[in-house]
């Protein structure tokens, strides 16, 4: 395959532009030194509505989403559309808890969700569990951003085999690592403007032009229907089947509940200036959901255009993630395809940067400072976080280079299941301390263990894998100590959801026992007023830079 120069040049130009922005970001809106975690890790905690909209939008709707969701629609049909109800549900669900988290975090200076848990329960162990879960769930997510970036690079002809084949990805990531190190959260915030503008431009053009070229949406849906009807498997289809409807619903709801438990989502919210900034964004962010829904349907457009996914020269297998890049390559002029590739590529950089910052914050605040150096100064804390962000990013590159990318997808699947297990500790704790510390610990252990056991038992007939083949659990496989409550039912459900229910039941039972035995339930440093304080309140902890002025 030859190198596509026009696309590559446009890609390189736009990549150079955001690199410049990334380094410039250190000085953008900066009033103090960048050596405090509030500054480096949360952008000074004063982003307004617009910046937050671009930042969270750029953070949640990742390159991987833009590549993988249409790929899933291309392969499985209606099931892939779960991304739409998922992103519709998430904002009404988190609207109230998120502003509570913002307020309590500003009053006490919390940087991570684990900081909140430590303060709420006075328990370093609970905070450690939240921090570890967050880091483990985030790492494969970063690796997946790389997979999205690499899908684009390979489509442009940089499809080398072996280690050299990964070189372009490596170069892109060294640059990203450097400006994130220097500018912190301001870099992805500024780049997000470019990323989202490009993405909107490309998607809107694509959903107008492609149907016109392919004979209208009706023809596209009919082509998809014909393809799914022709296959033997009942798992795909233009509509949901009898067995995957519950899976669709629980996956959408479970994913919506999990999204704002991810550290990078919390980081985006805590960087905002006030409660109203968050509330306005809960109203405005669904604009991205519309985009995602339309983009998902391009998976069907790819079917109608007879798109064939590229064979990845490093693994020797067709890479379904290349469906959208290949579709653009075939249907659009070279320069527009170049813009589209840049949009996806830059789309990978923004979330990768925010995720690595969020993971670095967790490491620094809840492991380094809580266990390794309790007397660390704010400067040492910030230095540690910067280094941690480098380690996290290079860990992700190593993952893509040395391990089959398929494992990144499996791990991300596991990540969604395990991050959901922190819901009682973080989201429920925002409202009530009814659950006992040890109930939460026991629930977490139960939810994690059960979730992993269930995932381990799911085969994937399509790829011939015996374990971790997907997140859809057939109900008849569900066993409670040998008892099969849904014996004979082939209906599928989302593992994360099942594990969460187990988690809550165990947490409640242990809580009842612990209360009966009068076991100490930790000290709560928050008061109920803390959850309602807003911008301008004298009770807010001053942000580091305000101290310098």
């Amino acid at each position, binding site marked *: 395959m030859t190198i596509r120069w026009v696309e590559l040049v446009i890609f390189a130009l736009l990549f150079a532009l955001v690199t410049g922005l990334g380094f410039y970001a250190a000085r953008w809106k900066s009033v103090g030194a960048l050596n405090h975690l509030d500054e480096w890790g949360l952008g000074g905690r004063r982003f307004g509505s617009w910046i937050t909209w671009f930042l969270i939008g750029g953070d949640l709707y990742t390159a991987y989403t833009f590549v993988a969701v249409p790929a899933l629609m291309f392969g499985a049909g209606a099931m892939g559309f779960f991304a739409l109800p998922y992103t519709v549900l998430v904002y009404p669900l988190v609207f109230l808890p998120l502003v509570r988290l913002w307020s309590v975090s500003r009053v006490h200076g919390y940087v991570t969700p684990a900081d909140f848990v430590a303060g709420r329960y006075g328990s370093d162990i609970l905070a450690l569990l939240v921090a570890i879960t967050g880091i483990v769930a985030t790492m494969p997510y970063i690796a997946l951003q790389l997979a999205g970036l690499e899908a684009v690079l390979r489509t442009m002809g940089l499809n080398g085999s072996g280690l050299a084949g990964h070189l372009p990805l490596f170069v892109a990531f060294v640059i990203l690592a450097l400006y994130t190190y220097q500018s912190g959260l301001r870099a992805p915030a500024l780049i997000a403007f470019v990323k989202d503008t490009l993405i909107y431009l490309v998607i809107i053009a694509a959903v107008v032009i492609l*149907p016109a070229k392919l004979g209208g949406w009706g023809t596209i*849906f009919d082509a998809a229907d014909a393809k799914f009807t022709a296959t033997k498997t009942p798992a795909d289809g233009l509509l949901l089947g009898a067995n995957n409807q519950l899976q669709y619903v629980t996956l959408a709801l479970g994913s919506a509940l999990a999204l704002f438990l991810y550290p990078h989502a919390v980081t985006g919210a805590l960087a905002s200036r006030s409660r109203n900034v968050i*509330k306005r964004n809960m109203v405005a962010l669904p604009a991205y959901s519309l985009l995602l829904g339309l983009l998902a349907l391009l998976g069907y457009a790819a079917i109608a255009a007879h798109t064939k996914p590229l064979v990845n020269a490093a693994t020797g297998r067709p890479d379904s993630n290349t469906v959208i890049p290949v579709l653009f390559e075939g249907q659009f002029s070279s320069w527009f395809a170049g813009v589209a590739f840049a949009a996806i590529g830059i789309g990978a950089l923004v979330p990768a940067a925010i995720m690595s910052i969020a993971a670095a914050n967790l490491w620094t605040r809840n492991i380094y400072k809580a266990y390794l150096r309790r007397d660390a100064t704010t400067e040492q804390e910030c230095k540690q976080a910067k280094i941690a962000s480098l380690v996290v990013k290079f860990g992700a590159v190593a993952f893509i280079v040395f391990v089959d990318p398929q494992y990144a997808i499996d791990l991300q699947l596991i990540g969604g299941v395990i991050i959901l297990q922190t819901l009682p500790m973080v989201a429920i704790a925002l409202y009530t301390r009814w659950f006992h510390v040890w109930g939460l610990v026991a629930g977490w252990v139960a939810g994690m263990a059960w979730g992993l056991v269930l995932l381990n038992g799911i085969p994937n007939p399509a790829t011939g894998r015996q374990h971790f083949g997907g997140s859809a659990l057939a109900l008849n496989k569900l066993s409670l100590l040998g008892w099969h409550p849904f014996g004979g039912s082939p209906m599928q459900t989302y593992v994360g959801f099942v594990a969460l229910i187990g988690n809550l039941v165990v947490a409640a039972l242990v809580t009842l026992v612990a209360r009966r035995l009068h076991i100490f339930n930790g000290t709560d440093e928050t008061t109920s007023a803390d959850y309602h304080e807003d911008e301008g309140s004298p009770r807010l902890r001053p942000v580091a830079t305000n101290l310098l002025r």
Partner: protein
Amino acid sequence: MRGWNLLLLVPLLALVTPVFNRDEPRLLGFPLFYWVQFLFIPLGVVCVAVVYLKTGDRR
């Protein structure tokens, strides 16, 4: 005032898939399953916006 918060539960109706899991009637070529779910985006926005406007702490 807090009763308005119940509006946040309305978008959960998007989970009642058996109601709209069919092809006909189509709208602009979109099967029912798809266009109904697209309609839930503005519905969700309206619900959240009303709660934002009706429940205090705006300054």
